[in-house]
């Protein structure tokens, strides 16, 4: 009996872990169009990205201001694969990253090792 309980509990836990870390969605933020004709969002980097889902409009230049609020090495580099951007983020400093999304879709961005993840939704 207890073996069955442990097995079922274990399997559900495995399912939960994978769903939560790999497939669930986080907080969403819409980029605002500033006076400088840029869609700007400030992203705080500490053990992850805040916000980690960013919604932007197609065809308008985007500026993501990454503020790295830690020295932990994991977040040292940010990668936006779609735009071939790979940039080091100095700790306690804001690093702006600019690009113009041309195609609609969902794009993943993350740290150099792909452990921290965020999503950019282009509409």
């Amino acid at each position, binding site marked *: 009996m207890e*073996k069955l309980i*442990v*097995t079922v509990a*274990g*399997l559900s*836990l*495995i399912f939960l*872990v*994978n769903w*939560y*870390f*790999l497939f*669930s969605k*986080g907080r969403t933020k819409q980029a605002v169009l*500033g006076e*400088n004709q840029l869609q*700007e969002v400030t992203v705080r980097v*500490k*053990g*992850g*990205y*805040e916000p*980690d889902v960013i919604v932007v409009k197609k065809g308008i230049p985007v500026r993501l201001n990454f503020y790295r609020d830690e*020295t*932990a*090495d*994991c977040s040292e*580099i940010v990668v936006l694969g779609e735009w071939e951007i*790979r*940039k*080091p983020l*100095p*700790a*306690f*400093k804001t690093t702006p990253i600019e690009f113009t999304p041309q195609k609609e879709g969902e794009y993943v961005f*993350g740290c*150099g*090792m*792909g*452990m*921290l*993840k965020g999503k950019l939704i282009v509409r």
Partner: protein
Amino acid sequence: MAVDPVCGMDVNEDKAAATSVYRGKTYYFCAIGCKKKFDEHPKTYLKTAEGAEEKKKEKIQSGGETESPINKDEEATKDRIDLPVVGMSCASCASTIQRSLGNLKGVEKASVNFANSKATVLYQPQLIKAEDLIKSIRQSGYDVGTASIEIPVRGMECASCVQNVEKALLVTRGVTKAAANLATEKVRVEYIPSEININEIKKIIEGAGYKVLEIPHEEEMQDIERIVREKEYKILKRKFFIGLIFALIIFLGSSSHWFPWIPDFLNNFYVLWALATPVQFWIGRQFYKGAWGAFRHRNADMNTLIAVGTSAAYFYSVAATVFPSLFSTAGIDPKVYFDTSTIIIVLILFGRLLEARAKGQTSEAIRKLAGLKPKTARVIREGREQDIPVEEVVVGDLVMVRPGEKIPVDGAVRDGKSSVDESMITGESLPVRKKTGDEVIGATINKTGSFRFEATKVGKDTALAQIIKLVQDAQGSKAPIQRLADVIAGYFVPIVISIAIAAFVVWFVFGPQPALTFALLNFVAVMIIACPCALGLATPTAVMVGTGKGAEYGILIKGGESLEIAHKIDTIVFDKTGTLTKGEPEVTDIFPLESQAEDAILRYAGSAEKASEHSLGEAILKKAEERKIDLVDPVDFKAVEGQGIEARVDGRSILMGNKKLMMDRGIGIGELENRAVRLASEGKTPIYIAVDERLSGLIAVADTLKENSPQAVEKLKNLGLRVIMLTGDNKKTAEAIAGKAGIEEVLSEVLPEDKVHEIKRLQSAGKRVAMVGDGINDAPALAQADIGIAIGSGTDVAVEASDITLIRDDLEGVVSAIELSKKTIKTIKQNLFWAFIYNTAGIPVAAGVLYPFFGILLNPILASAAMAFSSVSVVSNSLRLRRIKLGQQGER
């Protein structure tokens, strides 16, 4: 109309948004906000307003006192500005600028002085702005020596504040441009350093009612990170030592069966619990903090693994301590694993400690480079030497350097001679001689003489600044080899947690008794051994150390990708002129006819060529100067198109040129013709000389090989590379030079625009090609090649088309670069191998796969030791690259 004392706007008294009475006087405001500010600090604003007026008066007076081509009275109602002009090479440039300035509307008078490179303009500020004057000068093809700076400002809250700051700056003499940014809270100011300095600019912004923050220097920003890191390191160290003491006591207490002399109370579960708790939650706090931070963002990292793994051991032990009966009734011996949880935490802290120390050393190269930056410069302005911060040096400044001093910026020597130690930038260990016209690099050290030079590159354009930027970018990049590891890492942690849970279930269901204990220990072991830290460090640390090492040798590598491709190169193509050879012809042989002496021939030839502008003539002139031969000015100089020259020297007629010229004039060349043919077959250009219609000698001129080209080619061949020379020369000349360099394969008579096709052709034959050339003429070929190596760039460090830039004009650098890439990639491969063994191959062992066959289980403590040392071994392996010596490989 009144003026708002806060923002300076004109306000209609009847329509003012607010008023205030101060010391009996009524002040009008454009907005409530301004009134509020005024009421809080009325003095500040009144002072500013008065100050501005006083300054205006001062300006008018001082303008008249200086020796100026524009007189006092004219200036009283107008504004005057002195602009330093860069790029004037003659007096006619001055009049061009003067004319174009004079034609502008609002300009009363413009006078441009060529001697002191200054444009003095009297203008009506309401009609034209200083900015427009500068624009006009730039449009006429010259530049104005301005400096720019970004100043962080606090207190700008609205768009009108932005205008206030900009206005206050723009009315100030010496400021040419001001742009405030509300979002970044920064003001970008372009200014003329001779008119105003940074402190004065700060005062103006403060005078307008805003707070100026300290202007951060690039290095200082890095310092913040360093300070925080150092603090963290100290805390880590303290925690580790305290944890170590606790762990030792807990270990002894838990293993009392081995150590019978241990007092009994240490074996008590409650005592062990009390000891383990601070380790778990105080010393191990960073793991919980990190894990929670990541969890909130739906991420899982190594902190998650450690926190979950040790917590499992800890809480199981707590349960066994508090409710032992629960375990006993289930038929399990209530055991505690406080030693496991504590020792894991302490060991991992130890690993981090070592890692932090080693990692600090990987970025040493950048710190060293940043430390080279000079602080001050001694410039000559208005005829006086003055020491100024290096940030204020502008292009065109004349800079004075004395023996033993650091050269502050890049430039060209104007007068004086010296030798300069350039090792810190180019890697060249011997001092380099400098004379008028030579390029000097900022941050290098002047050795023997004093000289003055004109600044050509300042601020972020200097070679040093560009090198730092290039190396920083390269260090942030990764080699493609790492990408697979990256992809794995993204899914790694959730999968590891899944495996750990699965191991728990399998051991619990199928394992031997006590099943729960086995299940727990294996769960913890899997979690702990799988921390993917070493995997993540494998490439970046090696790339950082490798690129840093390159910079030390004057080899700048664009990124991890370039490093990786460079080691796979099998074919290397050299451009001939300027790459294998010196790029400037020189006299190689002199054959006087019987009665003549070499120097006599050279004297006639040199004197005649004095009037020539041909590069062959220059070579002869240079040789004559080298031999200290007194030359005279030629008379009746005439160039014979495509054939040679004729002139009269000391009353004798001199004729110099090719065979055709001699034949046309009916001069016999019989005796020397064979020799000339032989010289031509060696790739040299023979020049006949006739004095008074009689052949008197032969001079051969050729573009010669650089001294160490043959050695470099040989080393490359020994490295197993196919070496090819590419040139536009005819086949004979090309083969002669290639033969001397030791190159068998020659692609000759290739037009410059066809170089790209030759590279493509090699590539389509399946070759991985490196192209070595200069960054300007060969740019397309460099870009086409798998690896473009730009050579001898001097201060033009950021060569767009190249993947590797060699600052020094020396082919040995090519060998070193390839060697460095081979060594770095080898290190990366070793790192990845070890990381993989520790992190991935260790998982099944930790899960107990080997147990049914060999009875092998991985103790969680051993797992944590392996984990801690995997990172350390990877980083130390990368650090080994620091000690390599380049330039030895390929030698036999």
